[in-house]
């Protein structure tokens, strides 16, 4: 099986500075892949080259077995780190515009978006101008714009940066759903902990070079005994359980499931 995305010897320089330095990557189909590294490691540059927004100085990039082209862009969903919306545009027009530039017609787009619009409580906002929406609502619109063409591969650059907590959960749920559907998800983050919980495979970049990559399991196994383990966690009672117990002991009726929600 060909890799969803493969990079061979990719170099990208800005002046004398090598943002990406001879990078090789193999991202298999159906994995959730984390592109990790501190700020300035070359994550965004790598992603932009994969998306054909900038071109590598040398090396080769193949996406879904082909060199990136206009048709291929329609099979990939991309959420850049710097993302925004047209402020004066109505939400529904905005979503349909995102669909149109991915080659999706109005009817198909609306059919596809409808369930998501309901689950995200966006319907009352559809005819409002974007600038009237809260930041959290705008983030939902941006995310829907990434999905409107039902992409096979989803590339998210720092998807959780600046997201409000509710939307973090929302995006995580979407990513889990994507994984279940066997789609490939690539996201970059500088928060390693996030990747640890969500990714099957990772690559660690530092100063434009790849430090290591592979499945999380293999990497952890390889480093077993070479890095100190975290101290064992003392089991302690959860706050919710404590709350229920405290209510009971005060002689009141135990809280209902509705109240605890």
């Amino acid at each position, binding site marked *: 099986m060909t890799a969803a995305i493969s990079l061979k010897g990719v170099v990208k320089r800005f002046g004398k500075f090598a943002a990406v330095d001879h990078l090789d990557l193999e991202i298999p189909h159906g994995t959730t892949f984390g592109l990790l590294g501190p700020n300035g490691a070359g994550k965004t540059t790598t992603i932009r080259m994969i*998306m054909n*927004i900038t071109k590598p100085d040398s090396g080769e990039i193949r996406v879904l077995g082909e060199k990136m082209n206009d048709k291929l862009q329609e099979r990939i969903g991309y*959420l850049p780190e710097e*993302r925004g*919306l*047209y*402020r004066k*545009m109505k939400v529904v027009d905005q979503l349909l515009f995102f669909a149109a*530039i991915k080659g999706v017609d109005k009817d198909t787009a609306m059919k596809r978006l409808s369930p998501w619009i309901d689950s995200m409580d966006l319907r009352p906002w559809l005819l409002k101008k974007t600038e009237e929406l809260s930041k959290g609502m705008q983030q939902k619109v*941006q995310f829907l714009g990434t999905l409107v063409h039902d992409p096979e591969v989803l590339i998210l650059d720092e998807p959780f940066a600046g997201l409000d907590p509710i939307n973090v959960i929302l995006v995580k749920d979407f990513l889990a759903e994507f994984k279940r559907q066997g789609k490939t998800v690539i996201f970059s983050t500088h928060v390693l902990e996030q990747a640890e919980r969500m990714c099957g495979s990772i690559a660690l970049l530092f100063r434009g070079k790849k430090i290591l990559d592979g499945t999380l399991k293999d990497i952890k196994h390889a480093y077993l005994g070479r890095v100190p383990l975290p101290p064992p966690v003392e089991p302690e009672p959860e706050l919710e359980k404590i709350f229920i117990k405290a209510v009971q002991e005060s002689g009141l009726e135990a809280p209902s499931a509705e109240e605890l929600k």
Partner: protein
Amino acid sequence: MNAKLLAIIKREYLQQVRTKAFWIATFLIPGLGLALIFIQVALTRTLVAKGRIGVVDLSGRLYEPLVAEYKARPTDDEAEKPKKADEAKAAKVDEKSVTEKMSESRNTKITTKLDLFKVDATPDTLPTVRKKLNEDVQKERIKAYIVLTPKTLETGAAEWRAQSVKAEVVMREQIANYLSRAATKERLKDKGVDPAVYEAARVRVDLEAHEAKEIESGESGKNVGMNLAISATFFFLIYISIFIYGAYIMRGVLEEKNNRIVEVIVSSVRPTTLMLGKILGIGLVGLTQYAVWAGLALAIALPSVAAVAGMSEGLPHIPAATIGAFVLFFLLGYFLYASLYAALSAPFNTEQEAQQFVIIPGMMLMLTTTTWFFAFNQPNGTLATVLSFFPFTAPLMMFMRVSVQTPPLWQIGLSVAILLVTIWAVAWFAGRVYRVGILMYGKKPTLPEIFRWAFQTD
């Protein structure tokens, strides 16, 4: 056409056309234009020459004739009368003296109300008299005073003293006119000629312009004013449009950049497609605006409407060639400047930063307005010809030349060809710069850097 490009064009177009600002501007611009014309007309009707004028006549021969000339001036009522009288004896009087009378009656638009009074003085007392008169002028007891000497009769030299040498030009001209006539008549008397002969013999020659063609084209000098007005109107329409829509493009590019939406879009379409879509979309906005204006003009020109509005003649006839040239050169000019504006906006973060560079093509455009009248006077002269081949002034200059006096066909062709090649080159440059610029945030790039972007690999 490419569906994605169409989506971009549609978005740009609807975003602009749906705004109230667009419709306000669409109706406000012709409204303001008409208002300006009305104000202009109203102002020329209210040219005023009023006030007390002291006359120091050292020659002793000019004061009375001057007052006589002033009193004999055709007034609003009188201006009509001689004309009618001329008509009555039309058989005897030749046409040209009618023309003369008409041109004189034109002067009566100036409301003249002078109070000329004689100031006694001799060359000896003149300094004292002057002192007194200067004070009167400064304290605004009188508007001005004039000093006439024997020399006035010999060479025409005389003196005008007022608070400012720049103000009251109209009044000065009026009085100079009366004085010229008065002095001429006095000089005739010296030569033993009856001054009445002067009035009878004076002739004002009117050179009526016609085109040197076997067949009368109907284009005569009488249309010159109208031609000038039509040519100028369209000329400035192109000029203003390029600035307005150029600014739309600049704002659009910067908006997408500052909204950070541009990266989402260029992950779906090529940057050049985005740029082209933007230019085409806003170009269509411009054409819509023109269509609305043309519709309004037609509505006014409809005979029934015109009758209601009390306009018996309707709108002036505009030659088809002028309209054709207008559309052609508007489009060429628009594409040239729109690409430049896109290229010069993309590298920057704010309108202020972009303005510093956008002003460069703006200046070239302004060059055409400063040279416009010279070129109009000599549409086939060197200046007009050169500027109609220089790509950044060609859209306006070649249009103007075509609308005034059709230049040789090869010149029009060459101008269009130069424009097309330049547009191609600028669009290529713009596309390259745009592609790099829209993803550059932070530090303001320098001009050499921007040029480097155009020639670097992707």
